[in-house]
């Protein structure tokens, strides 16, 4: 039997260095130029909105994204160009989205409560007779597991980083990720 040797997951979404123009626009925007900020918005809206859809669901994504860019506008003075603007924005976006999650009352305990729910995920299929795409399947995961899956497998964060962001033990992040993957496999592989 041949197997592909596993390797550590790396941050696949290391942002593309279109940062030349981004750095200039970020500086202009920080000095109050809204047109420069609009260029930044248009350059990054797809990625931020996709993150929001996956983290929070379609219904909350638009509002969350607007919150992200408003917060970015307010915080531009703290961007010093040490990382790509996209990296800075992405981390800020995650913080905003996690803050929304907390305000919605999804507390740390929810991650633990989700453990049993995860095993039941296939039974939650809304369209059992149709093929389910990956985005839809992710959207059907319970909140906590979904966020860990998105942060780890889609966005490329490490368990240690995720645990810090979410205030969890690293082991909880690992076990939730495994259960999320197993649930998705059951959804998508049949």
């Amino acid at each position: 039997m041949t197997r592909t040797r596993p390797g550590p997951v790396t941050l696949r979404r290391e942002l593309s260095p279109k940062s030349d123009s981004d750095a200039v626009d970020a500086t202009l925007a920080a000095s109050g130029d809204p047109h420069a900020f609009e260029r930044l918005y248009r350059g990054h809206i797809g990625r931020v909105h996709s993150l929001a859809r996956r983290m929070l669901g379609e219904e909350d994504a638009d509002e969350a994204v607007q919150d992200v860019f408003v917060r970015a506008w307010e915080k531009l003075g703290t961007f010093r160009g040490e990382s790509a603007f996209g990296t800075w924005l992405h981390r800020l976006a995650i913080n905003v989205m996690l803050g929304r999650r907390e305000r919605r009352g999804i507390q740390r305990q929810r991650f633990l409560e989700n453990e049993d729910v995860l095993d039941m995920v296939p039974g939650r299929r809304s369209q059992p007779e149709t093929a389910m795409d990956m985005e839809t399947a992710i959207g059907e995961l319970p909140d906590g597991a979904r966020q860990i899956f998105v942060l780890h497998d889609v966005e490329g964060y490490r368990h240690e980083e995720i645990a810090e962001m979410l205030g969890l033990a690293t082991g909880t992040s690992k076990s939730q990720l495994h259960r999320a993957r197993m649930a998705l496999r059951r959804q998508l592989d049949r």
Partner: protein
Amino acid sequence: MSDQWTDRLSEYLDGDLEGPERTELEAHLETCPACSETLNGLRRIVIRARSLDDRPPARDLWAGVAERIGAPVQARPLAPRRRIAFSLPQLLAAGIALAVFSGGTAWLLHPDAAGVAVNQPLLLPADVPATNIGAASPRNYDSAVEDLERVLVEGRGRLDTVTVRVLEQNLAIIDQALEQARRAVAADSANAYLNTHLAETMRRKIDLLRQAAALVSAVS
């Protein structure tokens, strides 16, 4: 079907399982088709997750953002910013111009292909002002640009219209980039990256003007 190893498969897949446990799991996989199949399924999930595409929202959200930050809302989305890039016709025209330039006047070649040694004076024909650009006080730079622009203006009648158009378009693009870079430096003068970016953009303009001036001389 699951066994004691099933819950460790993600750790194994992510390279988080080390030492004896890893060895034991690999031995187990050799004899357990169910775990092997599960592992392959998990691997497919990870691959699919990593290949998800981003897509923008169904409706433009900029108006809502602009309203909240007090920015003017435009009727139409901004066109993408022009970048220093050349269309195919521009490249063709520039290529022809450069080929003529290179073939006939090799002695006029740029002193440093990497564009680093901009401090060296150019070897130019008598009617092209020799300039020491890189010593680069702003006054020297402006003076060098003025000299080279004057050569271009005076000699543009000797160049074909396509070449003149390409040169002028490219100069306009560089001037736009220069303006943006200057504004950025003005807003954050201590930012080393922005200063370097501005210097490089200035050098691009000088390089283009040098080539233009040399081209004028070559066809004189």
